[in-house]
């Protein structure tokens, strides 16, 4: 198992390098000019110097190498310094955003908590709803509950978040006036009332994202439970006289969770992608909104860094899913 994990880790490095190269080459083709916003009164030679100061004078492969060094070497050092008060990264060049003229990572660190709260909470809520639905619809296969569950998950699959988002806004904000329309990022939780406000403004984005998660996970849970319910060991457990509750919730559930856990790990990066749209709908000031803003402002270093971070999440969770599968299921042996 350990050798497998190490092998997968080593294999992940060329994958990540390849993806960062693809993103870099794509952005190389960008027609936008970072000097487009500079006033016309600035003479061309000064503009040329500004361009060089942004590091645009170098050939592509050197810029790619420098970006790699900044992302994988300098930025972790900054993080380390920040955590332990050391000065490893003193005076080293960081990834600078063309839009804010400041380090990209500072903005990311500012924006990440909003995304993590909304995305993380919605994922947890979605899983908590999905698992009981999946278990019960498998246990009562073809019952009314199962049919209704199938229909609702189909709807969850089919209705995109950019429709459910406006729909719940119309229903709960415009017509009923229960929840605030726009997510207030500057809101701080200090007492009970502000906590309630925070809860109220989070309900809609979280539920919209959770619907997608619920639809997927409950399908997998149902299929996996159905596979296990007809196995011989279930009959043995019943024959031993175990109560139905123990048979289903202990024996069957534990075995059915093996593939579902990996699906949960695999689905997490996708939910970050979905968050890009949900953040746009509810005006949540997270990294998805930062990516859209950077794309519209032609801020290539930010776009490159954020896109790569999304890719990193995908590769990382794929790895976790693979390793988890091996740990949970003793029948799977990779070596």
């Amino acid at each position: 198992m350990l050798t497998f994990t190490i092998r997968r880790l080593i294999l992940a490095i060329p994958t990540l390098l390849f993806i960062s190269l693809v993103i870099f080459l794509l952005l190389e083709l960008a027609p936008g000019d970072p000097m487009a916003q500079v006033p016309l009164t600035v003479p061309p030679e000064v503009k040329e110097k500004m361009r060089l100061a942004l590091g645009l004078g170098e050939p592509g492969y050197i810029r790619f190498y420098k970006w790699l060094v900044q992302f994988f070497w300098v930025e972790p050092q900054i993080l380390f310094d920040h955590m332990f008060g050391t000065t490893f990264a003193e005076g080293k060049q960081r990834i600078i955003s063309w839009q804010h003229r400041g380090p990209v990572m500072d903005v990311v660190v500012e924006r990440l908590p909003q995304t993590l709260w909304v995305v993380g909470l919605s994922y947890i809520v979605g899983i908590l709803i999905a698992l009981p639905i999946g278990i019960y619809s498998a246990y009562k296969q073809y019952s009314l509950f199962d049919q209704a569950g199938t229909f609702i998950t189909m709807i969850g699959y089919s209705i995109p978040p950019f429709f459910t988002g406006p729909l719940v806004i119309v229903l709960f904000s415009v017509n009923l006036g229960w929840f605030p329309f726009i997510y207030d990022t500057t809101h701080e939780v200090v007492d009970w009332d502000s906590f309630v406000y925070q809860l109220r403004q989070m309900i809609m984005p979280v539920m919209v994202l959770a619907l997608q998660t619920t639809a997927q996970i409950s399908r997998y849970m149902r299929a996996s439970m159905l596979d296990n319910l007809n196995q011989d060991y279930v009959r043995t457990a019943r024959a031993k006289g175990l109560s139905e509750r123990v048979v289903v919730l202990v024996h069957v559930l534990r075995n059915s969770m093996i593939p579902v856990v990996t699906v949960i790990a695999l689905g997490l990066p996708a939910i970050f992608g979905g968050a890009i749209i949900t953040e746009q709908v509810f005006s949540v000031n997270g990294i998805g909104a930062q990516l859209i803003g950077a794309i519209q402002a032609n801020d290539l270093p930010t776009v490159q860094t954020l896109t790569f971070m999304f890719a990193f999440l995908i590769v990382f969770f794929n790895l976790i899913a693979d390793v988890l599968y091996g740990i949970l299921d003793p029948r799977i042996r990779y070596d």
Partner: protein
Amino acid sequence: MTDTTNTEPATPPHSQWYDVWHQFKAHKGALLGGIIFLIIVFGVFIGPLLWQYDATYIDIRARNQGPSLAHPFGTDQLGRDLLARMMAGGQTSIAVGLTAMLLALSLGSFVGIIAGFFKKLDGPLMRLTDLFLALPILPLLLVMMMLFREPLSSAVGPERGIFILIVVAIGVTSWMPTARIVRGDVLALKEREFVLAARSIGTSNKNMITRHILPNVLSPIMVSATLGIANAIITESALSFLGLGFPPDFPTWGRLLNDAVQYLQDYPERVFWPGLGISLTVLSVNYLGDGLRDALDPRIRGR
């Protein structure tokens, strides 16, 4: 002594596609999904011929109207008829969905069959598929839209340029699941006796693929086709919704939804129709795929 000459079957023989249709009919949701999808397709392509208003006709005196007999869905902020815009938007959205699906499907089937059939290419092609699966699709699509919008628009015209761009972008980022499924099926097929028989009478690789392998992997390809349409329509709408799809005056369902969201506080009902168009199409196509999967699987058929 029993009569062994009378071996006529009890029921008249019928073709494989009759069986498939028979099984498909039994799946009520799939049948309904197929009918609704056909109605939507006919509605958006034939409807504009019968409807009096043009999708781009501006009547500023009739702006922001609610539903009426003249404008069943109402009008937008420039007085354009929303029913006409819904139909025009549906044409684009469904055309994008079908074309992108065809591109993704042919790419995926090609890679899948080649990888499954030729052992030497299997490793590299599957690593390539894995690499593509690890790409962050939505951010990359957004980046591609940002980069190639201007050059392509100026080269072949704004609408056609964006159409080509969106179709190609969705096509090259969504062929991977098809390739994996097809490869798995081809690998299993290669071990079957009929392939050995065909090989033993000297069938060439080209004929082997086109005559023996391809017809047998048609059913997974058809199922992923339906899922591909749904996926492509949602992706196109998402791009248009984020403002990085078609130009503002060119209606698609995602674009109409985006326009409606900007007037959400004053005219909340405007969100409904484009959203319903997207959701209903995707829902019906998903059900269609579900039924097709059952109908094309001979192990389930007949039960």
